[in-house]
């Protein structure tokens, strides 16, 4: 499954985009991650990951309407593609498979 491997941060970003469902643009994603995971994220790192995921075909983006607060600049909204959804699902399944394979005793303490 080499083609569909996701990094940890990539996975978080994709999941957040999915959570925001249609409202996912740069700042919203950052704030969501900061809120939910209590983790500082710079715009540089988030944008890099977004572009990379888009290039891989996991995300698509389109411009929204211009608003006043952003100095008239449009937002770029991201959505998860079918390929992206599929990859997320696969990642989760793989994880679950691994979890299930752990013998019960190994996690007891």
């Amino acid at each position, binding site marked *: 499954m080499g083609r569909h491997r996701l990094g940890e941060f990539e996975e978080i970003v994709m999941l957040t985009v999915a959570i925001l469902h249609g409202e996912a*643009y740069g*700042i919203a994603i950052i704030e969501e991650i900061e809120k939910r995971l209590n983790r500082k994220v*710079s*715009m*540089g790192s988030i944008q890099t990951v977004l572009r990379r995921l888009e290039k891989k075909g996991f995300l698509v983006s389109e411009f929204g309407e211009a608003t006043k*607060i952003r100095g008239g*600049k*449009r*937002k*770029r909204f991201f959505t998860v593609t079918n390929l992206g959804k599929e990859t997320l699902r696969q990642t989760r399944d793989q994880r679950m498979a691994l979890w299930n394979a752990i013998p019960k005793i190994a996690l007891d303490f």
Partner: protein
Amino acid sequence: MNTPSPPRPPVWLLRFFRWFCHPDYVEDIEGDLLERFSGIVEETEINKARRRFFIEVLLLFRLSLIRPFDRQCSLISYSMLKHNILISFRGFMRHKTTFIIHLIGLSTGLSCASLIYLWVQDELRIDKFHKHDAHLYQVMQEFTRPDEIQIVDWTPGPLAEAILEELPGIRYATSYKTHPVLGGGIVVGDQRVRAIPIYVDQSYLEVFSFPLLHGNKSQVLTDKYAAVISEELARKLFGKTEEAIGQIITWEKKDGDLFDMTRPLIVSGVFQTIPDYSTEKFDVLLSIEFYTEYNPGLPLWTNDQGTTALVLEEGTDINKLAEKISQLSNSHTEFERTFVLNRYSSKYLYNQYENGVQTGGRITYVWLFSIIAILILLIACINFMNLSTAKASIRLKEIAVKKTLGASRNSLFIQFVSESLLISFLALIVALICVVVLFPSFNELTGKHMNLDLSLTRMLAFLGITLFTGLVSSTYPALYLSAFKPIQILTPNRAKSGREVWTRKSLVVFQFAISTFFIVCVLVIYQQMSFVSTKNLGIEKDHILSMKIEGPLKDKVEPFLAELRKRPEVVQAASSNHILVGAENWTTGINWEGRAEDERLRINPIICNYYFVETYGIRIKEGRSFSPEFGTDSSKVILNEAAVRKMRLENPIGQIITFWGDQVEIIGIAENFHFESLYKQIGPCILKMVGTKDNFEEHIWIKIRGGQEKESIKAIEQLYAEFNTGYTFEYGFVDESYLALYESENKVSVLSKYFAFLAILISCLGLFGLAAFTAERRKKEIGIRRVLGASVWSLTNMLSRSFTKMVLLAIVIALPISYLVAHHWLENFAYRIELEWWLFALAAIVALVIAWMTVGFQTFRAAKNDPVKSLRTE
């Protein structure tokens, strides 16, 4: 908050972002940036948002987001850069002397500039840390006196409240009292700690930003008997800051306090240690109502006992508001007052007033040192320019070959600029090491407590200074070198350009003019300072111990003094209310026959005891001094000559005048002596014998024999311990406190000495380089001359001549300018040295000798060279 325009992020950063960002992504990321910025602004403050913005932009600078390169172009510029750096390093290795001269010169210049930058930055931030700094104003009162307008910071106590209630455009107003009436301290159990109190109302902590560690700033001072103490004090008294809350502390009365305010107070809060860059320093915040309880005069409109500070709304007209405040105050009382508003943070740097207008003060030194820093950097840059252009001939072939192979002028220009930037950054590294090493002594020298934290602004400033130096020093040589035409260079007989030599010479002249100027300044400052410290003051200030009267000693002053006089090591002892050096203390409560109706004389009162005149060696011109032999002298006074002249008294001895409502007799005239600083003319002064009414004695003066100070002090200490058990013996020397009056001048004097030395050093380095180069280039000529019989001396002379001319010209330019500047500076002093010709002659000779030594060494060596060796190789 309804601010007219929303704060904007730094435009240059946005431009930078637009420049590097991938065109496809620019729009939405920029939008995100702006949104984030305004989000942070709302939450915190603008500076934090700007800093955050800067970091975000930097973090966006990554490979996946930046504009794609034009492949070919980038490849060429990259390899060109590599090539340039390689060539530069080879050049450094081959011409080691030049390289080292450049490095030393630039790094000295840079470390000077960096140190001065740190100092200036520290001066400029004083009192600026308050959150409302931009709108924080202090209400000052303008007093019109017959001869001048005076500005003071006392205002009526109820002014702040009235302003807030009745005038528009005020956000906060606070009234407080700083002058510590209580000199005492805090007692907890059997622990006693000295502490400086400040009495404030409830909005004080809103107006000034002294953050609290414990307690809520709107509530800590609601109780009349609440005390907010400093972090340090809390630690000292209770171990941990959080344990201080709710504890009870007691103010203890100190002898000499006007009111007995001894009572328990409850600690309601702890504030953070006040930073060094605050001019307001205190240990305890107490409620002003507590103060009023003991001193009911404070809330009266007729008394000027408070200090008033305001935070204004944005866009309030300062002058109009000041006018309204004056009207407001005059409507409450018959006493006519005029108020002005001053920016609170400008009080430190602009602390001098002349007829009611801020005329400068410390800001002069800020300017002075900034200019010195720039001049020293310029000298260092000039070195670089001169040596680079002089050495052009070495690089001509390189330039010619590159140009024939198709290099453009631009690319050569870039090569030279990048070379000098490279050396500037190497110099920066050396300079930073120097700064770190020198920093502790610099701190001591300037009397500051600066730290070396590398903040962003500082880093940018250092980089900026370096870039500036690199660019200034390289632009001219780069333009000059890159302009050569290959055909000129490669043809054997080319004409030499006279312009090049001319520019170089004028730059050397400029350098030496600055150095000579510095030498004159150092000489003048030094002379004036030694004049001040040795000037005949009309009093003898050496070997006089001073101490304060406190504790039980207060009732035993006379026996103590009598006991002191019996000691063999004590010459004389006396007490007085006046500290005699640097005191500014005057009264108009004097009346005499022949006074004009509206004449008001400002006279300096010195309430003293027997033998005060003798202790200080004040000379009595006519009449006699106070003496116990004549019975009681308590209604007798001595005037100084200035007072007699001002009062137009003829035959003053024996005349009766009124002083503070009492009839007093003049028994003597004292020769003029200095009791203020030498900035001022000697004013009128009255010496009055201490009477029963004057409970004013504060100081004891003990004149001891010179040469055995240590033993004498020990003996006095023992005696003191007998009289004042439990109190520590604290003393000072009068001549030391006299010198402390001129502390800032002394600092400037020491600093200017160092800077002048550095300026001269850098100039000489340049001269050294030039001389070495000339000698090198004329090696063959020297060889031939020697073979034909020229002596070493005549050759040295020949080679030095042009340098001598330059330095002489520099001296001719520098002397008049330095005369004007020195004259201007000396005008600050009422008593000053004459600017004599030998000062300038000395400066000129020093400059000339230093230049000769630098050049002479090189030329002598060149002339001594064996002609066979220099002529053999071709």
